[in-house]
């Protein structure tokens, strides 16, 4: 009997070892996965109770944690008067609905759990201090951001401004916007009600139109077509381009008309400069037919089309259609058909031209610092592509200056500053108002800012919509805000 009992003793030990082995797997190896789950209340609660670092613009917090007297210890707040202006960038920090924007992309730094702060956490544990997150300083320019936000008042649209030499995002605004405080509250029933209201709002206040949505870029895309033309070697700014009132599109009976129904500058032929000045559809349509879709797509991709910029914020990739036929190519050359771009992308086109053809990778986070001001990381500017040669960039700049001085971009003029820009009015469906665009940079000889403004809906009569009239004044205000400093 004893041998049987001994065998049972061994069996019992094996059972217990199995328990220990399984628990070891669970608690030592699988724990990371489980702790990363969205429905993990423990992790969420504990993060909600951390003294989360602030998000700064300059030295001003646009999101910060303040002590609260309830179970979460800290309350995330966004300064009342500017919260909506910054909402597309900060995002929200919600117990029930997770995080968005910088709150999401820099979460581990803000709550101090990032591996780069492991040493600091050990020190905190030893000294019995509460874990405190790092501060995230953004590249945004407060004046530009507020100017853009105010400029879009009452409209549906977005503004993106970049520093051409570095790729720093100076402004990123989307309207209508929302107040992230409504989602960060500790009264969870109220938060849930607010969320429902925001997500059901037809004006989609939580959508970040600056980077997450794609729009036909319309005539602003002519900058890309012009860049392709100049880069091809077949064109220079003085090259005569066919520019009748209507362009016969091959293989169809459809004609591509100019916006005003007239030919370009009084003749059926115009120089490239004049064609851009007057934003002639027929001229750029025929350039597109001449160059072919591959050259256009190639040029667009060098400006960043087809890639996700700021992927950490969930930005969309701008698109040039894959295989357009001839009439579609002519349409694409003027930013219609299936060409789709984000406001950020069009700002990058201007910024690339402003920066001698070198498109810089856009970024929003300037640096991350711990509470005792030790730098955890600092973003270095990075070149994305050389979109055009410096010579072509210079030619394009001169043509864009001409647009603002003599052409459709006049509303973008700034006193004593040379502005280079391009307007756009993009048609979608007949039942929707066209999109008004303006992209520009200034000063033209030493660019400090490149900007793109897109207006989806401005509540004005259809005939009054034009990029120059609607969007250019906003771009001007944003540029002035930066240059005035």
């Amino acid at each position, binding site marked *: *009997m004893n041998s049987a009992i001994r065998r049972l003793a061994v069996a*019992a030990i094996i059972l*217990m070892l199995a328990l220990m082995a399984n*628990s070891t797997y669970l608690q030592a190896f699988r724990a990371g996965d*489980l702790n990363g789950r969205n429905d993990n209340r423990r992790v969420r609660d504990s993060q909600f109770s951390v003294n989360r670092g602030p998000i700064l613009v300059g030295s001003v917090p646009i999101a910060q944690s303040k002590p609260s007297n309830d179970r979460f210890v800290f309350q995330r707040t966004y300064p009342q008067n500017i919260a909506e202006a910054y909402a597309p960038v900060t995002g929200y920090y919600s117990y029930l609905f997770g995080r968005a924007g910088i709150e999401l992309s820099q979460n581990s730094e803000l709550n101090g759990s990032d591996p780069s702060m492991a040493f600091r956490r050990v020190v905190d544990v030893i000294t019995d201090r509460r874990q405190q997150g790092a501060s995230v300083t953004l590249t945004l320019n407060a004046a530009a951001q507020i100017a853009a936000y105010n400029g879009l008042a009452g409209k549906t649209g977005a503004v993106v401004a970049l520093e051409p030499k570095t790729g720093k995002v100076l402004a990123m605004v989307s309207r209508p916007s929302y107040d992230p405080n409504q989602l960060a509250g500790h009264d969870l029933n109220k938060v849930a009600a607010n969320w429902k209201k925001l997500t059901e709002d037809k004006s989609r206040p939580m959508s970040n139109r600056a980077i997450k949505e794609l729009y036909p870029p319309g005539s602003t895309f002519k900058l890309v077509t012009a860049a392709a033309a100049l880069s091809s070697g077949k064109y220079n700014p003085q090259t005569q381009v066919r520019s009748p009132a209507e362009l016969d599109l091959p293989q169809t009976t459809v004609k591509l008309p100019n916006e005003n129904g007239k030919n370009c500058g009084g003749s059926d032929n115009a120089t490239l400069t004049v064609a851009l000045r007057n934003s002639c559809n027929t001229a750029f349509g025929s350039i597109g037919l001449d160059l072919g879709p591959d050259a256009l797509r190639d040029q667009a991709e060098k400006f960043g089309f087809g890639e996700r910029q700021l992927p950490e914020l969930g930005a969309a990739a701008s698109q040039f259609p894959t295989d357009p036929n001839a009439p579609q190519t002519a349409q694409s050359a003027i930013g219609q058909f299936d060409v789709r771009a984000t406001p950020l992308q069009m700002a990058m086109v201007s910024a690339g031209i402003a920066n001698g053809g070198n498109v810089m990778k856009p970024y929003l986070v300037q640096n991350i610092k711990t509470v005792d001001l030790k730098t955890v990381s600092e973003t270095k500017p990075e070149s994305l592509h050389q979109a055009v040669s410096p010579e072509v960039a210079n030619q394009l700049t001169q043509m864009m200056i001409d647009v603002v001085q003599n052409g459709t971009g006049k509303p973008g003029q700034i006193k004593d500053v040379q502005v280079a820009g391009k307007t756009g009015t993009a048609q979608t469906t007949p039942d929707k108002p066209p999109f008004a665009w303006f992209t520009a940079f200034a000063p033209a000889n030493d660019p400090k800012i490149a900007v793109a403004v897109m207006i989806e809906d401005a509540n004005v009569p259809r005939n009054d919509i034009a990029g120059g009239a609607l969007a250019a004044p906003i771009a001007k205000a944003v540029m002035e805000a930066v240059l005035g400093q």
Partner: protein
Amino acid sequence: MSIASTSVIQIMPRTRRGVELMLLIIAIGVSVGAYVNIGLTVQDKVPASTGYYAAGIGLLALIAHLALRYRAPYADPVLLPCAVLLNGLGVAMIHRIDLGLEAIAIANNRTPKSPAAPQQITWTAVGIVLFLVVVLVIRDHRRLQALTYTAGLAGLVLLVLPLIPGLGVNLNGARIWIRLAGMSFQPGEFAKLCLVIFFAGYLVVKRDVLTLAGHRFLGLDLPRARDLGPIGVAWLVSLGVLVFESDLGSSLLFFGLFLFLLYVSTERAGWLIIGGLLFVGGAFFAYSAIGHVHKRITDWLDPFSIDGGQIAVGLMGQAWGGVLGRGLGQGRPELTLYANSDMIISSFAEELGLTGLIAIILIYTLIIERGLRTALGCRDIFGKLVATGLAMSFALQVFVIVGGVTGLIPLTGLATPFMALGGTSLVANWAIIALLLRISDQARRPQTPAAPVSDETIAMAVQKQ
């Protein structure tokens, strides 16, 4: 000359009661320390109830110790401290979860439920009283053999009690509770004890028949078909428990116990194989025919399929604990459903981490192995079988519940011995430990020494030759 060359295990006839006292003091110290630690962490003060708790656990443990000194001086010195430590830690954790649930209730403007820890201390006292009764009244465990069939009948009655309308209640999908005079009992916990005595008594009588001639098949000695009777009955009864009371854990426990005892008494591995096949058959039947068993298994395979499922939340708690744990009072065990009963192991894993959980499993392992050692040393077959049965009931129970909570096997609602909130289980476990100690006293007690043989006698014997 070689008198010592026997295969009998020699256990030094030393009482070791002093060792037990030292271990007890450590166990009480750890328990009270845990209690105070929880108060300091959660409420920033030594809990006012510390005195009540320390006196409760300490006095009860010391009374049990004195009873052993008085009536079972040779009993195993490790079992009592292990049980006290588990019981003490369990109460501390139940208190900790009381505090957590209270905070949640206050945050949601609800009146907190009355705390469960004082209740558990009261049940500990009842358990120790039963412990004393077993140690003091049952002077020799062999007398229990006379109760074989009485125990078997009692066990069956206890098993079916919850099925009686008006008496049994359905709780959390299982009908294993009865409600009497406003209090709830889980009669299955005592059925376990009764059935072990019945199995042991029955097998002592029948082991020869069962060991005798069978067929050899594939190198195995299989018993004759008609001898398969008892195992068939055990299988059917355990399946009945499963079907009618929806109690997966208990049916596994009863069937497993009978199988183990059958194996020990006959030493035939064939029984284990037949039993294993029957178990697989029963399990497959249960999986395909019984809804809640099916659900238990699908929950186990994909615990995250249901939002906020009990197992999933428990697993996340254990993951949150990690290797070293959040620290007592610093986790959120109260977020898990039944954190202080079914899921108490998960609560410990969260706050004490993998390290603490392994320590707890090791304490259980110690109890199991000490119990089996008692069986090895026991001189009568009945005692051997009872000790094996009781020790293996711990092994099965710990494996089933800890395995369920940690996601190794499907979760079944067995109580975690000595730790989980629940009076019946606690009291029954104290009775089981008492019986094990009683048998171990018998096993370790020096045999009545033979009359000393003097050198003179030997010399005379040699001379006569």
